[in-house]
């Protein structure tokens, strides 16, 4: 977890990347990976409807970017974003989604069956690699509901609620994981069908410094399928 935070820090302070830049590339990777694993034609719901659940931090921001690109790729995303930071970045991303006619739910579907009926995929953009400690409401109940749905879940970077290094055997078990920048230690505990790598922006020098040993991305793709 510290390494991931250190890499991020270097990208921002040494390389002068803005959070906006990297978040946009990260969110785009997530949407691209989802499009590869769950093409719109594969949905059994009448529309390729996707529920994107966004948490209170940067992982949520990644989710907002992802939702916008999913819309561009022909999906019908809906966002649930209960705790919104009052920062220009997140307000901007929210506006961009709203202007693209992406609906924002005012409450979370209470029943797992309802989620399964309406959506063919759920994107978990609740907590990311900075997550520590106890899960605060409303996310505890949300995660509880998500654990009981049958629709596939695609988690951004870390399955929410997992310990960033050790995982969580009784936690969320997503079908897909999109690791950003590099897989985190918790990814070793991932048992879903699809593991993609996204966030193709790490300069070679940083990759070497932190011995990331990332496999090469194909051509100009922004994602790499690991499993």
């Amino acid at each position, binding site marked *: 977890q510290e390494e991931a935070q250190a890499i991020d820090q270097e990208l921002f302070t040494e390389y002068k990347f803005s959070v906006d830049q990297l978040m946009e590339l990260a969110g785009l990777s997530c949407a691209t990976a989802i499009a590869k694993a769950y093409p719109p034609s594969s949905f059994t719901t009448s529309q390729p409807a996707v529920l994107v659940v966004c948490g209170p931090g940067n992982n949520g921001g990644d989710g907002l970017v992802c939702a916008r690109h999913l819309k561009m790729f022909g999906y019908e995303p809906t966002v649930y974003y209960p705790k919104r930071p009052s920062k220009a970045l997140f307000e901007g991303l929210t506006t961009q989604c709203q202007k693209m006619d992406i609906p924002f739910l005012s409450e979370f579907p209470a029943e797992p069956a309802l989620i399964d009926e309406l959506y063919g995929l759920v994107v978990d953009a609740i907590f990311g690699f900075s997550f520590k400690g106890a899960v605060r409401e409303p996310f505890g109940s949300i995660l509880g509901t998500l654990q009981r749905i049958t629709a596939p879940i695609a988690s951004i970077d870390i399955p929410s609620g997992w310990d960033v290094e050790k995982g969580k055997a009784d936690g969320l078990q997503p079908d897909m994981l999109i690791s950003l920048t590099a897989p985190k230690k918790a990814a070793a505990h991932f048992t879903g069908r699809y593991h993609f790598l996204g966030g193709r922006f790490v*300069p070679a020098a940083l990759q070497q410094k932190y011995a990331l040993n990332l496999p090469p991305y194909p051509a100009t793709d922004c994602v790499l399928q690991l499993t």
Partner: protein
Amino acid sequence: IPISSRQAFPLPSLPRKQPTVLVVCGPAQNGAIGLVCARHLRIFDYEPTIFYPKRSPDPLYRDFTTQCEKMDIPFLSYLPTEVQLINAAYNAVVDAVLGAEAEAGEGREPCAAILATLKHVRIPIVSLDVPSGWDVEAGSSGGISPDVLVSLSAPKQCARRFLGRQHFVAGRFLPYDVQKKFELNPPEYPGTECVVALRAPR
């Protein structure tokens, strides 16, 4: 400034063993897009070199410059006027000198000198948005002749005069209401691609 992906993905197949590309960046937004393009080229394992003589004071663009420098992308201190040197060292030139916002008489030097040199290179030129030096509506006679044009958002009027091999549009991420408002009618983008070819390669 929209945070839409400012990535141009030209896809030439390069003849030389080392995929060297010269990216020539002007003083304004077109140049900044060139910087972002250079960085992505580096990530894609090309070997870009940048010529950026007149640097913008805009903090966002300064950061783009830092990102390129930290990625070990060399910045030339001058552009050789001997065209043979350019032809020999690089496989292609990315023209990010002037975009649609430039006016005919704006930024005369060093842009005019750069464009005079670029007119004579034999290696392919990829122009970002508008072939630099062209009038954005009328085009140009006697200006540079790019091999590839990457129109940003939507083709500009001068694109009709484009005679090169490939014309791409990078406009996938424009919000729908903007597309409708300006009646852009973009073509279908394949899969998750962010560029689409408007014309089959000759």
